[in-house]
């Protein structure tokens, strides 16, 4: 079963206005790669040139911040809920 990924408002232009998309991946890293395949351009918004997740982007797996788990190597279980949330709220305009 694929994971459900919540897309923040400023990135929905890239997902045809979908707030939640379904993608598969064993880890966050895999999941980001599949996201990029399905919605080109998404990854560069979430990761910097060296592939690191940007400092002001928070990713939660089932409510837990991956920074305090295994970072990009954090496993994504079947049907997990993944949220991508800008650290500084607001500014969607």
């Amino acid at each position, binding site marked *: 079963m694929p994971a459900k990924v919540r897309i923040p408002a400023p990135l929905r232009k890239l997902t045809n206005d979908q707030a939640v998309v379904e993608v598969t991946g064993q880890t966050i890293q895999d999941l980001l790669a599949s996201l990029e395949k399905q919605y080109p351009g998404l990854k560069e918004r979430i990761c910097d040139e060296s592939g690191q997740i940007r400092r002001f982007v928070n990713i939660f797996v089932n409510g837990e911040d991956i920074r305090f788990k295994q970072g990009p190597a954090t496993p994504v279980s079947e049907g997990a809920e993944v949220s991508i949330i800008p650290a*500084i709220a607001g*500014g*969607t305009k």
Partner: protein
Amino acid sequence: MAVKKIKGLKCKECGQLYEAKALHVCEFCFGPLEVDYNYDLIQSSVSRKSIQAGPISLWRYWDLLPVESHDVITLEEGYTPLLRARNLGKLLGLNNLYIKNDSTNPTFSFKDRVVSVALTRARELGFDTVACASTGNLAGAVSAYGAVANLKRFVFIPADLEEGKVIGAGVYNPHIIAIEGTYDEVNRLCAEVADAFKWAFVNVNIRPYYAEGSKTLGFEVAEQLGWRAPDQVIVPAASGSLLTKIHKGLQEFQDLGLIDRHTTKLNCAQAAGCGPIATAINEHTDLIRPVRPKTIAKSLAIGNPADGVYAAQLVMKTGGQGVSVSDEEIVEGIKLLASTEGVFTETAGGVTVASLKRLVQNGKIAPDDVTVVYVTGNGLKTLDAVQGKVSRPHVIAARLQDFRSLYEQLLNNVPAHSTI
């Protein structure tokens, strides 16, 4: 058209450029935006002499603040006393200790600095309504300055705020909205309100301009020390913004040739019940782990600090320390400062004084270091914190004989100030 000193806004993370509007987050990478100045223009107009000829307020640094108009919204904030703390210094074995007493500002906290700048800029950008998410001090400042500028005012606070701060804002007659939740929850709501209502939220969409007001706490200390940077500063941290801006102020003075190269150590003072930045520093990381605040230092009770990363990095880079102190130490800090230097500070100042004490005990401050402790708010704002913990009146009848016998008693007791 005249050349402007504000070139625009720039993302602190990825460098993306934006127009100088009411924006605070980079659309591309979600990093915070900062004001991008035309330093060539500033360099050509600013000097020690030009500053000294300016007003006795933070507007003497107009050239380095993010507004274009000279018609500023002011209550003559800033240029507050830098006190030579001889008694406290002697007690702690420090020969060059100073207190930057920002509790003497118009609404009794350093927030008047950021609000004076933010509201001036908000008016320039055409807003007629100003708002803020506040732990109390900011609410008072926005309410007062907004009144002077005839702006509509909405201030959002956590519902459990000290009564002194609620009244201290309410007296200026703003709309006060108390949220059942922590400051971090207030802040999240305000981000949504800012988007929906198109108001000038000083610490949300006006933040890039607002935060620049804190630089003046770096400028002033350098000027007041005779155009030199201190060796050590002890700065209370909530969002971490103040600490980064004091550093930026010293850096700009250095880059403009107004002071020599500085090697100021930045020390970050937090309460143990809400010390995410100090914790990160002590773990030698800039990963800030958010906390749920539990401390009497409510003005510092931000569990998810917006500038925490940058503050932690600067403290580590400059060789400073992160300190977190208990509620008991905070109260002792308040009493110590008042009984040695005559300055009655709110809990945040208790945090910095207690942190100073700790740094001295741990050998982190040398006796001759020029050390500046920032006191950012007035003690009358947080009377609850010291209620029942300070000297009480001796009640007697109106008879000389009664006073004589009380006096005899007092003589036999140890004087209060030697108990520290």
